[in-house]
């Protein structure tokens, strides 16, 4: 059973991770369905099918979710596996359940969330935290390897692999991802599933359900000689060999104990609808202290890390907002609103539903979606916004809306997208090359898919960008390509509530008869 669990977990973990990393569309897009099965996104999307299924699965079999579906859980098992490679005699002592702590974490998350402060949920949700690790740490590494292979290939005139642009979009997200990885990695290396069983709100809620699960691990069957091997091998520290009891709220049904028992005295079996929760654990002051200490140090670390990143991230993240360099004829401007992706309807709705898993950041083929720092205020930290330093939103693309697991970006069709105005173009005439240098340019209009920016006659042979607000979809093509620095001559201001753009598509070719060469 343990082997089956490991194989399934590794397959799902690889698929989720590879889907995050795959920039070349080698994997089928349908894989985003795996993200829909993550509890918190499903909850925010009110995806009843997934929610009911997860509850039913947990009520039947226990915390299968934590063992096989949650990428963060599997990542921790990997750290735990590593630890066992280095410390053959690694032992997990039985620990008392930190009931108050666990439920106060849930209460904190729920209270903060209902109070409109989603950052805590976004920080603690294991799937989203893993998504940020994949996006901010694994993906750049993967791209670097790809570029190395591409460089070698190109040298030998092989262009099967191609170079990819690697850039750090957000220091804050990187710092948080690194801290998450270090803290959770350390905790699992040292204490197994401690994060899942003390801090993780998903673990606590599923743990509560798991107490009533139909199938459970059962200790002390015929042949048990109370050797205690199961207890020291339990990465969730939930087995008390002395009393032969298991805290089912912390058991992640990994079957390690079943496997390890020499006497075959542990079985996973039908147990009926009883909570069967051992309350008789004696107070073990040693274990108690260790847990508390770990948790405290972890939370202090998280706190410090977030503080640190507040300061570390400031320069980089705010660089796009306002640049302090002024040139003689360059008029500065400041954007008021961040631009949310097409399908997010309005900024408040988006902030409320996005768990900052950054799947869309990883998958955006134009690299337009980037994690923010304080663009949405502190509550929206790490949630993505459209930024046009590295690209602009492709007119035909609706990928982010299709893959968003929490429906923060609602699925839209290509036709619907072309009618959406996520932001509105602003022209700073004083900065335009046509005005300042008296030369042709037109790069903005060139990139405008709807000709909301069109070139109209100006002085002499010159043409100048002219704005048609009603046609603008806010894709940012104009802002991306405008050659003027430090402040561009054209930019897109976000629409806090997305509006409709006018579509003026002619379906027919003009019938023009050309029957001579003209020269």
């Amino acid at each position, binding site marked *: 059973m343990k082997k089956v669990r490991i194989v399934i977990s590794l397959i799902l973990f690889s698929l989720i991770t590879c889907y995050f990393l795959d920039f070349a569309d080698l994997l089928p897009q349908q894989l985003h369905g795996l993200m829909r099965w993550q509890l918190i996104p499903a909850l925010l999307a009110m995806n009843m099918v997934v929610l009911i299924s997860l509850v039913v699965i947990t009520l039947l079999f226990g915390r299968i979710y934590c063992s096989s579906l949650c990428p963060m859980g599997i990542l921790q098992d990997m750290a735990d596996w590593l630890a066992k490679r280095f410390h053959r005699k690694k032992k997990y002592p039985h620990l008392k359940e930190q009931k108050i702590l666990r439920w106060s974490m849930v209460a904190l998350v729920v209270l903060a969330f209902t109070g409109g402060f989603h950052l805590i949920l976004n920080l603690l949700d294991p799937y989203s935290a893993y998504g940020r690790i994949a996006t901010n740490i694994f993906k750049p590494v993967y791209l670097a390897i790809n570029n190395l292979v591409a*460089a070698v290939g*190109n040298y030998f005139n092989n*262009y099967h692999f*191609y*170079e*990819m*642009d690697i850039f750090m979009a957000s220091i804050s997200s990187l710092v948080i991802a690194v801290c998450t990885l270090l803290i959770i990695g350390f905790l699992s290396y040292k204490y197994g599933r401690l994060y899942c069983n003390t801090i993780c709100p998903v673990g606590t809620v599923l743990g509560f359900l798991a107490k009533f699960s139909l199938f459970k691990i059962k200790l002390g069957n015929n042949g048990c000689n109370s050797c205690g091997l199961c207890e020291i091998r339990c990465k969730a520290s939930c087995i008390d060999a002395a009393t032969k009891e298991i805290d089912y709220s912390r058991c992640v049904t990994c079957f390690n104990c079943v496997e390890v028992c020499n006497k075959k005295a542990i079985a996973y079996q039908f147990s009926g609808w009883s909570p069967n929760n051992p309350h008789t654990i004696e107070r073990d002051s040693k274990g108690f202290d260790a847990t508390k200490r770990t948790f405290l140090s972890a939370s202090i670390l998280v706190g410090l890390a977030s503080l640190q990143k507040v300061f570390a991230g400031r320069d980089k993240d705010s660089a796009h907002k306002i640049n302090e360099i002024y040139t003689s004829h360059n008029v500065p401007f400041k954007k008021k609103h961040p631009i949310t992706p097409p399908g997010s309807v309005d900024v408040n709705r988006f902030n409320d539903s996005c768990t900052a898993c950054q799947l869309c950041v990883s998958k955006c*083929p*134009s690299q337009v979606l980037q994690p923010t720092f304080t663009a949405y205020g502190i509550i929206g930290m790490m949630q993505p916004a459209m930024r046009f330093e590295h*690209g602009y939103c*492709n*007119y*035909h*693309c609706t990928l982010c809306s299709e893959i968003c697991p929490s429906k923060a970006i609602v699925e839209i069709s290509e036709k619907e997208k072309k009618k959406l105005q996520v932001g509105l173009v602003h022209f700073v005439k004083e900065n335009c*090359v046509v005005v300042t*240098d008296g*030369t*042709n*340019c*037109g*790069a903005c*209009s*060139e*990139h*405008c*898919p*709807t*000709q909301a920016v*069109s*070139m109209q006659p100006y002085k002499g*042979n010159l*043409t100048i960008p002219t704005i048609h607000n009603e046609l603008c979809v806010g894709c940012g093509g104009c802002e991306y*390509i405008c*050659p*003027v620095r430090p402040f561009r001559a054209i930019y897109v201001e976000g629409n806090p509530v997305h509006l409709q753009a006018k579509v*003026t*598509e*002619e*379906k*027919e*070719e*003009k019938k*023009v008869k*050309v*029957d*001579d*060469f*003209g*020269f």
Partner: protein
Amino acid sequence: MERRYFLKAVAITGVASTLKIVDGFEVLAQTSKATSGSAGYDLVAVMGGEPDQMFRRAITEMGGIGKYVKPGNKVTIKPNIGWDRNPELAANTNPVLISEIIRQCLKAGAKEVIVFDHTCDDWRKCYKNSGIEDAVIAAGGKMIPGHDESYYREIKLPRGVNLKTTKIHQAILDSDVWINVPILKNHGGAKMSIAMKNLMGIVWDRRYFHNNNLQQCIADCSTLAKKPTLNVVDAYRLMKSNGPQGKSLGDVVTSRGLFISTDIVAVDTAATKFFNQVSAMPLETVEYIGKGETLKIGTTQLEKLNIKRIKI
């Protein structure tokens, strides 16, 4: 001294004999009646056919592809694949034309035929949705990327006025022969996008052009020492308005034309005059063409050229 001259003469005769064989072979292979192929036209204009058919006619009149592509040559073809648009919207060069050129080059003995563009929209989407990637692979060519700075090498443009150095795609620099295959389009900034403008797709930093007198930089770029061996203007469909990307089919006119020349200024002049019949575009408004003539890249004096006009 005598020995040296003798050896030279032998070498030249040797080369000449291979040339003749290839030439004759190609002309025969293309069409039965094309015997006046080596008449030496400066520019061939064709109207009224399909893209591949018009190219076959034009290249035969130009002396056959073998006059330009030798056995063992590395050929690079540079279409315009700037936009994530399908072929009907005339934002990108016609894929049927590209595959015909590739087939001819391979038939002439080209070692490999490479196709690329530095696109504006996402290059993967452009390559795919333009139909060009599929056409290239089907014809036996090789599609390579142009989206990353590492593919470009810096060169000097000593004759350039505003553009003195720029980074050019290695596929151009390393080729033996390169063929410039733009599509005929209106352009909001440069007025027209034809052969000279298509060279912006072999360059890495295009913002520099826009920031330093676009018209002058386009002309400067065409002073490139490694100039295109042939310029083939695809005017099967032209974009009469809202170029270079276009909005919809309303911007497209099916004009069934094709122009080919070794003179990039002349071919742009001819194509602009052709375009002018559909939508007013006096030659002098397209400043880079005049500037190109000033830089002695080519001529706008079409009346002084030997032009072959064919209506199919």
